[in-house]
């Protein structure tokens, strides 16, 4: 991959917690319109990797370069990283449960986030249309006026994905989106993610192999904090080391 098409690049990142190396010399890159699945056994460093990209955890060494100008994310705050176009979906659905679906989406729309411009904000026609489109996209058109806390588990997951899309991110980090979903809901989620990846980079952490297979994308296998294998799902599943890691425990 050449520099121009690479959106995010992790260059020999290491993080240790109390001496335990959660991430060990991890190098990784993702293109600007690419869907990528991240798999790996428990403790492989998948969530820590997302924490590092979003600024929640600081790397001990290594660099994270983002965008055409290769900005170093290691120096930026969580909110600045989010404003730079990196959206994150947590494992457990996290939406603002006491507010309506509509209010949730309005908060996420890509506008200036400083307190005083938010204070002056008036909803225009364009935003209303945008929210309708987003709600349609994630299948919540009929639920805009409902309180988010009343939604089903799957609907909350979609709302959160909808909020991420509303941010108009260039990179979307999605942690176990299919957990706790019914088969139909999974299918819908797959569609949303595949469509989202047509115009932006999407990284999906997932345990469920069937789900990963349906995403039909390049797979990165993490193990003990570094990349063990990379390629199509069939390719990595035949890799001897991968089989050992997954079945040998």
């Amino acid at each position: 991959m050449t520099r121009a098409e690479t959106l995010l690049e992790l260059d020999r990142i290491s993080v240790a917690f109390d001496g335990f190396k959660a991430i060990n010399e991890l190098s990784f890159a993702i293109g600007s319109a690419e869907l990528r699945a991240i798999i790996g056994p428990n403790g492989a460093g998948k969530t820590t990797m997302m924490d590092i990209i979003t600024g929640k955890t600081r790397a001990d060494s290594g660099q994270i370069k983002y965008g055409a100008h290769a900005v170093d994310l290691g120096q930026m705050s969580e909110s600045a990283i989010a404003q730079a176009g990196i959206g994150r979906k947590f494992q457990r659905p996290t939406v603002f449960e006491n507010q309506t679906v509509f209010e949730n989406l309005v908060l996420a729309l890509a506008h200036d986030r400083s307190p005083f411009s938010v204070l002056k904000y008036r909803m225009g026609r364009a935003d209303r249309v945008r929210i309708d489109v987003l709600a349609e996209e994630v299948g919540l058109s009929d639920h805009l006026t409902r309180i988010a806390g009343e939604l089903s588990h799957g609907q909350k997951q979609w709302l959160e994905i909808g909020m991420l899309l509303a941010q108009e991110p260039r990179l979307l980090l999605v942690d176990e989106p299919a957990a706790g979903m019914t088969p139909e809901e999974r299918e819908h989620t797959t569609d949303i993610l595949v469509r989202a990846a047509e115009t932006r980079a999407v990284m999906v952490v997932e345990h469920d192999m069937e789900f990963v297979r349906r995403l039909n994308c390049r797979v990165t296998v993490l193990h003990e904090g570094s990349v063990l294998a990379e390629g199509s799902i069939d390719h990595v599943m035949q890799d001897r080391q991968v089989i050992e890691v997954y079945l040998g425990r």
Partner: protein
Amino acid sequence: MERTFLVRNPSILIFIGVLAVVTLGATLLSEGLGVGLLSTSFIKTLGKTLCLCLAALALDLVWGYCGILSLGHFAFFGLGGYMIGMWLMYARTEEIVSASLANAPLPATPLEIREAIGTQIFGVVGGSDIPMMWSFADSLVLQLLLVLLIPGLLAFVFGWLAFRSRVTGVYLSILTQAMTLALSLYLFQNDSGLRGNNGLSGLQNLPGADDIPQALISVWFLWASAVSLAMVYIISTWLMSGKFGSAIRAIRDDENRLRYLGYSVEGYKLVVFVFSAVITAIAGALYYPQAGIVNPAEMAPIASIYLVVWVAIGGRGRLYGAVIGAAFVSLVSSWFTGGQVPDLNLGFYTVKWVDWWLVLLGFGFVLVTLYAPKGLGGLVDMLVRRKEA
């Protein structure tokens, strides 16, 4: 735009209606402007209650909406009182001193007047020099500015340090409590420049208003308190109903989610905290001229905890809830502790309400927490919903 705002927030009209009826009614029954059915001290109690409602409203903004449980809001309340008290006391003393020196054979020099004022005010703590911090005390405008600036600055510095370090929850509450305790202890010292434990007194006497009876002044302050409460209610409703309010409530519900949406949560907390502190200071600046005296005991931690109890009983997260709670509990409280309630004779034991009121209040707080977490304001919500259904 205005109309839709009022249509979306019908509570404003009801609130202002009730407030206007109470204030007008009290005026018509007062000694100052009405038929004299209500004593001047009752009018003052009413005016003070409205100030406490204003402080409760301000606390509700940070606690009920933003999720920051401040146990130190009376620091701002007291500071507001001190700032206006400095002008009241200085200007009034200056009047008295000038009047008494006017009879002297030689006209007094400005220096003599200044020394006499110093002795008058600070004699009680064994001093006669006017401290630096009283430099602006002869100017009403500047002291009014300080009412906003000093508590605002304290809230800004405190909030900036605490929020930036991501101190949240009970730890933040403890810090706010420590802040008010430290301020109170500092002001208790005689050399703090604010007359130690004596505090500032005689604040009910407005400078230049010697021939105006207290009966009338008390009505003025009642109106000033009511108008301030109404204005802050409207502004707060506006703040909390739009996208800004949505972001503030989002901080309460899940501040990390908001952070990863790209909002600088610390900035928002700081804006709300400082705003709330300034409102509380205004409430204090209106309260203490009606109370007549402000001293460091006012900022003792327990005062701020009462404020929290009022908001909890009234129902946090709804502005009228905070006001209902503060009005109801503080009025009932002054009724019980005023000694007007007949003692309850149980035969083997006589319940003296002056002593037992706190037990009753504590019990009420526990009941509300257990059985009506939305407080008295929640009852209003229920009634409204039943009507609609």
